[in-house]
């Protein structure tokens, strides 16, 4: 069970402090007073009365995680997730900041809608930064009022859920966003090539008799977006990359001279399409779980830093949306609560990535993509701290889920690395 308390005076004692911003790692203490970091050092003297001391020995103390791609279903489908239940799911996963996608009902496509999300999130225990839609009603035709939306708190722009199919419109959107200095985040899938595919086009899809979604559907649009963004020098963020071809294209285009960023989701790092052998609808996701070579390429790309960050694409759905045939089931899975245990297991424990490097992909890098302050471990900063045991093995179960939905293929899986405490917005959470 998750417990919460107001944060007054707390001493985080003897933790392994990893600061991904300054790139320093040391054993030490962090003192928090009135919700803010007041001291960081190797041995802060214990002052006694009025201080709560948390023994962090054996634990890692690092920046609160930041997930730049989540779907909280408010407004419209509050039965699947609300801003509040989503915030709790984020806390349970060690996230202190998230960026919410705009494909709600109604679509977040005006300054007034942005204002609604911002004001409704104010009192929640994490920072929620709304991503505005690129096109009105996500129809891919008319630009939204991005300048006014940014003034009201929009952090970036995306029609996620619906690819921007029209290249001329994508070009205009990238051009318009130049004024804002924020990325356009495109769901890169050619809708014609995708052709109603419900899983990766492969031997498995053929054997199951399911319509396949070719990896080319993603690659072609990734290629188009990369050409557009690099030739016009615009900011582009590629969402949930899933294919080897996309990784190869990224390698070809990404350089220090341009502003191309990308993300990968935990499920694309953990599963392969063969895992869908029993029509498990919790593995139905867009873009689909791909083949072994794709997974391998994605792991390499996140390890090497070619892909900048990990984003869950947390997509809650009701039981009735998933307890149906594979064809009829909705796309998407929840991902916040299981994220760290999954990526730590796959990347650090099984594929030799350093823990420091993994933390960057969950903290500094996503914040940089979205122009969010990433220098969190400085005196005077509001405490946003995640404390975890990197080695604890645990089985992911329904009881770990704070989301209103439980559509996760990770239920029953053994994960490595468990979140213990989160400090966020003047509160301390114990898991």
């Amino acid at each position, binding site marked *: 069970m998750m417990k919460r308390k107001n944060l007054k005076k707390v001493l985080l004692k003897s933790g392994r402090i990893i600061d991904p911003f300054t790139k320093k790692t040391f054993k030490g203490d962090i003192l928090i007073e009135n919700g803010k970091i007041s001291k960081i050092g190797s041995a802060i003297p214990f002052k006694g009365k009025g201080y709560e001391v948390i023994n962090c020995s054996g634990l890692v103390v690092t920046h609160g995680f930041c997930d730049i791609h989540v779907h909280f279903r408010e407004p419209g489908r509050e039965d699947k997730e609300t801003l509040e239940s989503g915030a709790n799911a984020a806390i349970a996963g060690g996230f202190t900041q998230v960026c919410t996608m705009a494909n709600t009902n109604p679509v977040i496509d005006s300054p007034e809608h942005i204002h609604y999300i911002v004001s409704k999130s104010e009192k929640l225990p994490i920072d929620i930064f709304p991503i505005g839609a690129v096109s*009105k009603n996500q129809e891919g*035709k*008319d*630009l*939204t*009022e*991005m*300048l*006014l939306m940014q003034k009201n708190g929009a952090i970036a722009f995306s029609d996620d859920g619906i690819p921007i199919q029209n290249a001329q*419109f994508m070009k*205009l959107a990238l*051009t*318009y966003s*130049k*004024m804002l200095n924020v990325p356009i985040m495109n769901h890169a899938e050619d809708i014609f090539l995708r052709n109603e595919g419900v899983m990766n086009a492969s031997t498995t899809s053929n054997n199951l008799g399911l319509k396949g979604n070719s990896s080319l559907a993603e690659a072609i649009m990734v290629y188009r977006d990369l050409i557009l963004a690099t030739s*016009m020098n615009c900011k582009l963020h590629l969402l949930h990359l899933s294919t080897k071809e996309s990784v190869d294209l990224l390698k070809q285009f990404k350089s220090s001279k341009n502003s191309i960023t990308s993300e990968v989701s935990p499920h694309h790092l953990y599963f392969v399409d063969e895992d869908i052998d029993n029509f498990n609808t919790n593995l139905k996701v867009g873009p689909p779980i791909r083949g072994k070579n794709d997974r391998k390429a994605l792991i390499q790309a996140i390890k090497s830093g070619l892909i900048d960050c990990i984003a869950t694409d947390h997509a809650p759905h009701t039981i009735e949306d998933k307890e149906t045939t594979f064809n009829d089931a909705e796309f998407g899975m929840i991902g916040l609560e299981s994220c760290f245990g999954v990526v730590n297991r796959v990347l650090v424990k099984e594929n030799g990535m350093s823990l420091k490097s993994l933390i960057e992909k969950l903290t500094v890098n996503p914040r940089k993509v979205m122009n969010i302050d990433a220098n969190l471990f400085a005196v005077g900063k509001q405490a946003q701290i995640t404390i975890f045991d990197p080695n604890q093995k645990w089985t992911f179960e329904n009881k770990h889920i704070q989301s209103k939905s439980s559509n996760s293929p990770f239920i029953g899986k053994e994960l490595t690395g468990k979140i213990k405490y989160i400090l966020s917005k003047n509160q301390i959470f114990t898991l």
Partner: protein
Amino acid sequence: MLKSKHLIGLENFPISDLNKIIDTSFKFKEILQTEERKAILLKGKTIVNMFFENSTRTKISFSLAEKRLGADSINFSASTSSVKKGETLKDTVQNIESMKIDGAVIRHSHPGSSLELTKYIDGSVINAGDGSHEHPTQAILDMVTLKEKFGKIKGLKVGIVGDILNSRVARSDIFALKKLGAEVVVCGPSTLLPSDAKKLGINVTYNLNEVLHWCDAVIALRIQLERMHLGRIPSKREYHSEFGLTFERISKLKKDIVIMHPGPMNRGVEIDSKVADSENAVILDQVLNGVASRMSILYLLLGDGKNNL
């Protein structure tokens, strides 16, 4: 009187011709302010005004200029002519030419249409706006207005705000201002700015307040509302908030700046009524200077030198 026979655009127009037209405009302005308002310098000359595209002030301005100079002018508009019956531009023009004319003023939605006309007409051709290409007489009246206000154009700091990409006024103004030694900054939404601005020798910014603090004069361009449907700007509201000459913006400036607009204005979109009607606005001066400039242009291009000013 001029090196040029036609006035098609200002990009390659000789600077000496440009200066002569501007200077002569002031003489015509004096005449326009006398009781008689006339100078019969083009008696016996025939000018046809060909408006293939709608126009209010440019058409009236040319007609008036011709009448004040004593020329015989004929108006032709596409909506009431054989163009509607499917006649080609070449045929229409050759028919008109065979009726013996000395000059032609043309407005057409296609870039290059006025240059095309020079092939079929022996007299002088004056471009009154060809698509998104040039609108040289508008730029000349703008230069006259600036010179009248500041005494010179060299060294002036001029901001142009709006749809720079598709505006013939912006293009001609930029050519004229650069030729005459002014500094130019253009401002507008990134989707309406040319990507090759550096090649034009001008600076580009998205920050209107910066431009307004910097400039001596600002030209607000008409935002063509039909452009919104091409998705280049999301709404009138956003445009007005970020790129509109609002009363709030103008009243915060530390010095007075001259406000110009070629018309027709979308009040409440690119310019607030309070700004358009303020003392610093010279929008109606531009209109009167338009008649004087066009008299100057017609006189210098069509005059035979016998009837000196």
